[in-house]
């Protein structure tokens, strides 16, 4: 169907969109790793499942005995749960960033990695959504927060940032899940046509009877176009609102106007880094070297680097105001971080957030999967530490020194945190075996734009009219 002249070097887009491979080959290359489950895969699933099971036990222990089984105390009322909640919400920002923003920007290199990113958003949000439940201790009381007409004549308090959180995260979760699913429909149909047995039955249902008519494609593109636009304000609002959980209080260090953009940028930074981490791992785990190429990592690495620079700017802007303002409590907190008990965390945060920016400036680092993995992992360590410092570090100090406190995590908290990391990995692993990890139709569609067609004696690059 399409062929490239041997003498012409492939363009960037052609390379990342596998211009030389046929559609059938691509179908096979995507479906093959899904259908192949090695013992290693099952060992991984078993291990993750065991961690999740242990975490569920820890959660049930917490529910049985009370929040006292965690290391919280007065005044450190929020700890690892909220920290990890913020972390997961942050991670969830990558998917939308890649799919919606880059889709609107028509960056074609995004195509093979969109599904991975969208799945990450959905699963990270699911993990994040667990924390408000866990955090309550008496999880069955959660429904008090849901607004519904009741015979107590009581509504929730929409003044509370937690209610905003509830609305924003719920909206984002629904939106991003639909977004993920919409883009999945043609591939489900493709998978349906290439599989049998239970997979066939599953894909038949999920494929919603997709036939690939012009009308269907048109509607899909319309829907995706609308979603891409609509989800961006949600995407910006979610982490802004999460930041307002902190910023609306008068707790020293939380009470800051820069928190919303700072949190959003931080979310993008950690989210993109997490995406890069995952892509490196999935690539080697599923042997997708052909789809996920150095070019992708190069582009992604650049994005991470830019997000990191933005984060650094916002961090510095916040820090400068705090430092210059010289408010006694804030000064005490800065003191704590720079030279006190929080110093190890603080320097870890700074090193782990700043060092990758420098590393990622090097093309070699961006394009070498191992090095990229190391730097993006570092980013996520750094961003987790940053949130630890914001949530726990700040709460340990307040206006009245008599009321200061210290916090030690317990096994219950650590197990539950581990549970969500393992749970995320487990969902992601299973997802990658059930759903084509690389969006085949997007690839094909992209390839259309750069495929060469013979018109008479000429080879003419054609751009698809759709899009």
């Amino acid at each position, binding site marked *: 169907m399409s062929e490239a002249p041997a003498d012409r070097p492939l363009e960037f887009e052609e390379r990342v969109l596998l211009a030389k491979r046929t559609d059938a080959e691509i179908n096979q290359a995507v479906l093959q790793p899904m259908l192949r489950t090695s013992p290693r895969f099952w060992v991984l699933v078993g291990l993750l499942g065991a961690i999740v099971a242990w975490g569920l036990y820890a959660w049930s222990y917490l529910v049985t005995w*009370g929040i006292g089984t965690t290391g*919280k*105390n*007065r005044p450190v009322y929020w700890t690892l749960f909220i920290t990890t909640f913020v972390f997961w919400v942050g991670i969830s920002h990558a998917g939308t960033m890649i799919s919606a923003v880059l889709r609107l920007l028509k960056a074609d290199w995004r195509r093979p990695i969109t599904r991975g990113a969208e799945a990450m958003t959905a699963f990270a949000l699911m993990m994040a959504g667990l924390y408000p439940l866990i955090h309550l201790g008496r999880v069955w009381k959660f429904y*008090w*927060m849901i607004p519904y007409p009741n015979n107590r004549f009581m509504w*929730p308090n929409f003044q*509370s940032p937690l209610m905003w959180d509830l609305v924003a995260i719920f909206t984002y979760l629904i939106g991003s899940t639909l977004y993920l699913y919409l883009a999945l429909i043609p591939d489900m149909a493709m998978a349906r046509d290439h599989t049998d047995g239970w997979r066939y039955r599953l894909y038949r249902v999920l494929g919603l009877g997709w036939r690939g008519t012009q009308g269907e494609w048109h509607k899909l593109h319309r829907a995706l176009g609308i979603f891409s636009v609509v989800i961006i304000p949600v995407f910006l609002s979610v982490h802004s609102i999460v930041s307002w959980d902190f910023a609306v209080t008068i*707790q020293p260090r939380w009470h800051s106007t820069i928190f919303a953009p700072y949190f959003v940028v931080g979310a993008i930074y950690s989210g993109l880094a997490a995406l890069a981490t995952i892509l490196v791992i999935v690539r080697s785990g599923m042997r997708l070297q052909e789809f996920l190429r150095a070019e992708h990592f190069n582009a992604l690495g650049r994005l991470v680097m830019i997000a990191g620079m933005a984060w650094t700017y916002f961090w510095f802007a916040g820090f400068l105001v705090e430092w210059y303002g010289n408010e006694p409590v804030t000064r005490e907190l800065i003191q704590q971080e720079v030279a006190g008990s929080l110093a190890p965390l603080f320097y870890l945060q700074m090193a782990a957030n700043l060092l990758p920016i420098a590393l990622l400036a090097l093309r070699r680092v961006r394009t070498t999967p191992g090095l990229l993995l190391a730097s993006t992992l570092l980013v996520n360590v750094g961003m987790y530490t940053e949130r630890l410092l914001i949530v726990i570090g700040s709460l340990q100090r307040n206006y009245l020194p008599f009321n200061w406190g*210290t916090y030690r995590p317990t096994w219950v908290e650590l197990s539950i945190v581990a549970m969500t990391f393992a749970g995320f990995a487990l969902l992601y692993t299973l997802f990658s075996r059930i759903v084509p990890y690389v969006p085949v139709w997007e690839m094909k569609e992209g390839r259309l734009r750069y495929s060469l067609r013979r018109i008479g004696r000429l080879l003419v690059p054609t751009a698809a009219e759709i899009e």
Partner: protein
Amino acid sequence: MAKVAKPSAESAATGTSRRWAMVVDLDRCTGCQACVVACHAENNIPIVGEEQAGYGRWMHWIIIQRYWEGEYPNVKARFMPVMCQQCTQAPCEPVCPVFATYHSPEGLNAQIYNRCIGTRYCGNACPYKVRTFNWFRPEFPEPLPEQLNPDVSVRSRGIIEKCTFCVQRIRRAELDAAATGLTLADGEIQPACVQTCPPSALFFGDLNDPDSRVSQLARSHRSFRLLEDLGTGPAVIYLKGGETNV
């Protein structure tokens, strides 16, 4: 309803004329802890034990903070009883997602225990850190449940609690006054801490009544409020301690 800074205006808007307030005369306070135990007895406050208390999980609704000044031998210790300040602009109130804490028409920061779902957001928002949380199910070995005050809920685990200005006493006194047709005089309603305070360092009454004892004391040149610059408008008014030099 918009909140207004002045207690009187606020109460006028809600149709009642009271703004409950407490005055703490630091010059009288000796730090003796009588109020602390009285509060435990009145309000069914659980005891958490050594380990939990050591980890900052004690449940006192009123604590006497002790501050050191100077160094030996010119060292001074000062006491400061700190309980819920019943702020006019309470930072704890807007953050509660379920209205478990809200502003009552008489200016109290009410805490409705059975509505609390335990987000502990109010605890973070409170700059005085006077809210305590039931980390575990409170234990009252038999027959200690007999001592519980039936006018106050026994809180379960997972619930934030705090000083209420002994609202059960206010409610009881008002009901009794209505039943007997008498009016309540200033000083007749006393929270447990005020009632027991041996050196009479605590006073309780209506700040909107210009002749009440608390109003008179609040006008003292010694009066100040805790963390006043935060703009929370506490209803607890402190009177500075002094020092006599001879």
